[in-house]
C-alpha cells in the first residue's frame, strides 16, 4: 500500500483484528490466518497493513504482547486482548452496526 490508507479500511481492519483475538492469543501470522478464516476467505490482510495496525493497538493498550514458544517450538510474539481491548471491541462492533444501518438506508433510498 502507498502512503495513503483510507480510514474506513483501517477501521474495519482494527475490528477484525480485535475479533480475531477475542477467542485466544495469536501471533502476527496467526492473526492473518484467523481473519481469512472468519471472513470465509473474503479478506486477505496484507502484512504491510496488519503489523502497523497491531503495533498501533499495542501502543494504545488494547492488546498486550509477550514472546512465547509456539506450536513448532519456535519463539513468536503473541498478542492478547486486554480488558480495554475488550471494551474497544464492543465499541467498534456497535459503531459498525450503526454504520451498516446508515449506509443501508442511504443506499436504498432513491
Amino acid at each position: 500500500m502507498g502512503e495513503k490508507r483510507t480510514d474506513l479500511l483501517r477501521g474495519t481492519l482494527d475490528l477484525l483484528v480485535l475479533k480475531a483475538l477475542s477467542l485466544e492469543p495469536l501471533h502476527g501470522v496467526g492473526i492473518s490466518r484467523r481473519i481469512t478464516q472468519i471472513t470465509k476467505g473474503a479478506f486477505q490482510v496484507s502484512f504491510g497493513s496488519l503489523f502497523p495496525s497491531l503495533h498501533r493497538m499495542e501502543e494504545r493498550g488494547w492488546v498486550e504482547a509477550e514472546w512465547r514458544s509456539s506450536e513448532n517450538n519456535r519463539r513468536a510474539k503473541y498478542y492478547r486482548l486486554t480488558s480495554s481491548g475488550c471494551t474497544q471491541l464492543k465499541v467498534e462492533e456497535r459503531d459498525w452496526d450503526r454504520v451498516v444501518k446508515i449506509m443501508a438506508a442511504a443506499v436504498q433510498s432513491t
Partner: protein
Amino acid sequence: MPKRILSLFRNLFRKRAVEQALDDELRSSVEFLTQEKMKHGLSQAVARREALIELGGIEQVKEEVRAVRAGRFLEDFARDGRFAFRTLAKSPGFTTVAVLTLALGIGANTAIFSVMDAVVLRPLPYKDPASLIMVKESIPLAGPEPIPVCAPDVIQFQRQNQVFEAVAAFRGGQFDLAGVDEPERITADRVNANLFSLLDMQPMLGRTFTTEEDQPGHSLAILNYALWQRRFGGDPGVIGRTLTLDRQPYTVIGIMPRNFVFPLEGMEQGHTADVFAPMGFTPEELADVGDNFNYSVLARLKPGVTLGRANADISAIAYRILQTYPPQFRDRIKLGAVALPLNTKVVGKVKTLLLLLLGAVGFVLLIACANVASLLLTRAAHRQREIAVRLALGAGRLRVLRQLAAENLLLALAGAGLGLLLAFAILRGMVGWMPANIPRVNAIGINSTVLAFTLVLVLLTGLVFGVEPALASWRTDLQSTLKEGGRSAQQGLRHRRLRSALVVGEVALSLVLLVGAGLLLRSFERVLATEAGFQPDHVLTASLSLPETQYKQPQQIRAFYRELMARLEQLPGVMTVGASTDLPLQAGWNHIFSPEGGQPPPGAGLNLCWHSVILGDYLQTMRVPLLRGRYFNQQDTPTSTPVLIVSESLAKRYWPNQDPIGKRLKWGPPESNDPWLTIVGVVGDVKQGPLDAPTVQHTYEPYAQDIVPASALNVAMRAAGDPASLAASLRVAVWGLDRQLAVAQVRTMDEVISESVAPRRFNLYLLAAFAALAAVLAAIGIYGVISYSVAQRTHEIGIRVALGARRGDLLRQVVGQGLLLMAAGVVIGVLGALALTRFLANLLYEIKPIDPATFIAVSLLLATVALLASYIPARRATKVDPMVALRYE
C-alpha cells in the same frame, strides 16, 4: 491516552530495543510463513522466497510500522534537523557567511531596540506615569523657559489646587559625604514626605519619613540602592547609623530598592540622587517671596483631570500669588505657572538620536536580509538538480519542502543564537560608554519583543527565499531539469534579476547611512576645531565646596582659599594656580547689567552676560589672552575700587570704537543701587557654555572684592609636565587644611573638553559603526552577485577566450557590470539621502544637511568599494582556462 505517551517515550529513548523487537517479530513471522509453505511441499529456498513475498518484504513492512508509530512526527523532525545540519556543514563557506550576516543583523537590531525600548518606549519607572507632571513657574521678562518654583509658592500650590492628587517638591544639591574612607561628593535631594507615596515606591529596608518629620530639624536620610552597595557594602545594619553630610549628622532610616531612580535627567539639572532627606522648609525659606526659584515640583493629576484644566488651575493660583506682591514688583515679575507632562520633558532631547539609530538599524537589517536572500537564491540554483533527482527518486514533495525549511530554520536559529550573544556584548560595551545624558541607562536590557520580531522577520526571509526553489521545482518539468543539467534558463534569469535588484537596494541603503555618518563626522570635526578661547593642555581642575555649617564666617572661607592657593603654588611641577566659580564648557546663567555711557545694542531689552568670580592666576592658568589693560593683582582689595575684566565680545558690543578700560558698569537695571564696577582689562572670549553653543558675553570679578565670598570654587593648576600627576598632591594639600572636605571632579581640562563632546562623539561612533557595517554587507552583496555571474558564465567566457577575446576586455566587461549595479544604487541612494538627511538637522553643527562635499565623498567611497568587490571575481574570470571552461557545465 497515557499509555500512548508511555509508548512515545519508549519509542524515542529505547529506539534500538524497539527496532530489534520489530526485527525479531518480522523474522519469526517469515519463519512461520516459510514453514507453512514447506508443509505444502515447496523446497526451503522457494518457500522462503514465497514467504518474503507474502510478507511484503521485511524492510517495507518495517517502514509501514514506523510510519504509524507514536512519536513519528518528532522523529522525522529530528531526522530533518540532522540532515539539514549535515547539508549545511557540507558547504561551510555559505553557512558561515549566512550565519554571520544574520547574526550581525539580529544582534545589532536587538541591541539598539533594547536601548530604544528602555529609554523611549517603556514608560517611566513610576506608577501610572501618564498622570505625572512637573509644575513650573514662569517670569516672561527673565526668559521664555519656565523656571522652578519658589518655596512659599510650593505651599500655595499644595494648598490651593483642585486638580492634583498629590504635590511634592524636591531640591537637589551636592554634599560632601564623610565618615567612611575618603570624603566624597554626592547628590542629595530634599524631598517632601509625600513624594514616595506619590511615586508609589516603598523602601526596600526601613522606612521613609512621615509628614511630621518633614520639618526643619529632622536630620533623617534615606539611601539610594547604588550608594548603599558602593559605600556601605549592602550592609542592612546601616539603618540607624549616622552619616555625615556637609558636616551634619544624619540618621539613616531607609534604603530604596534597586529600580528606584529619582530624579530623572530632564526633571532637574544634575544627576539622580544618592540620598533623600526631608524637605523641612525653614521659616526663612517660606518668607522668601518672589525670589530663589529653586524648587522643583512634581504632581499627580486626579483621575479624569485633563492637562488643560490643570494648567488653568495653577495659572489661577499663580495669579492670586501675584496679587499679593507689592505693586512695583507685579509689573516686573508677571508670575505665571505651567504644567508639563513628565514624559515629554524626560525623553524629548534624546528622541532624534534614537530615531536616527532606529533608522540605521532598520537599514542594516534590510541589507542583511537581502544578503541572506541572495545567498539562498544562489544556493537554490545550485541545488535545483539535486532536488530534481530526489523528486524523481520518489521523495514526497512535502518531504523535500520540509527538509529545505529545516535547513533555513537551522540557519536562522544559528544566526539568532550568535546574534543574541552579540547583542549582549554590544549592550555591555555600550552601557559603560554612553554619555550620562541618556536617561535610565541602568534599565537597558535585552528586549524579548524585539528579539522575537527580528527572528520572525529573518525566518520569513529565510522561508520565502529558501523554499522558493523547491516550490519552483514543483512546477518545472522534472525531465527537462535533469536533462539540462539542473539549470532552467528562465528561472536563472529571474533569480539574477532579483539578486541584482537586491544589491542595488543594498548599495542605496548603505549610501544613505554613510552620508549620515559623514555629516556627523564633519560636524564633530567642526566642533573640535572651534576656538575654545583658552589652552586646555597641562591643566588640572578640581571642584571644592566648603560646607556652610563649618565655614560660617566670610573670613573663614577667604582664609581657606588663600592658604590653599599659597600651598598649591609651592608644589613642585606647578606653573600657575587659580580658581574660579565656573570652569569653561559648563553651564551658567544670565546676569542683568547696565553699562555706563556705552552703546546699548539696538532693540535689546535687557543687557545680559555670564559672570565668574576668580582667584589667583586663573586667567593666566587657562592662558586666556589679555587684549587690553591688565589681569587682577594684589592692588585689588576689598577696599580699593571695585574692578572688572570683560570679554572681547562684550567690549566690542557696548563700546565699539572706544577703549573700554576705565569705563564702568553695574549689576541690575539702570535704576539699581548696585555699585559701579570699573573695567581694568579685556580678555579673549572663552566658550563658557558648550563648544557648539554661541559664545556668551562674560565678565570676571576678583575674589577679594566679592562681598559674600563664594564657598564653592573650581581650582585650576597649570603643570609643567603631566597635569594628572598633580592630582595626588592636590588632595594632600586640601586635606592638610580640612580632612573632611571632598575633592570632587578631579579632571584635566582636556578631559573636560572630551566629556563635553562625549554625546556628540557617541552619536558619531554609533552611526559610523552602522554605516560601516552596511557598506561591508553591501560590498559582500556585490561581490556575491558578480562572483556568481562569472561562475555561471564560465562556459561562455571560456568560448570567448578560445575565440580570441582579450582578457582586458573581459575584465572591463565584468567590472562594468558591477559598476552599473553600483551606479544604480548610488543614484537611488543619493535621492533617498537628499530626502532623509533633513531629519538629522538638529544633530549637526555648522554643516548643512545637504552638504555637497559629504555626498560626493561618500559616493566616491562606495564606487571604490564596488570596484574592488567586482574586480576580484572579474580577475578570476580572466584566469579561466578555456579548455577547462569548455568542458564545464
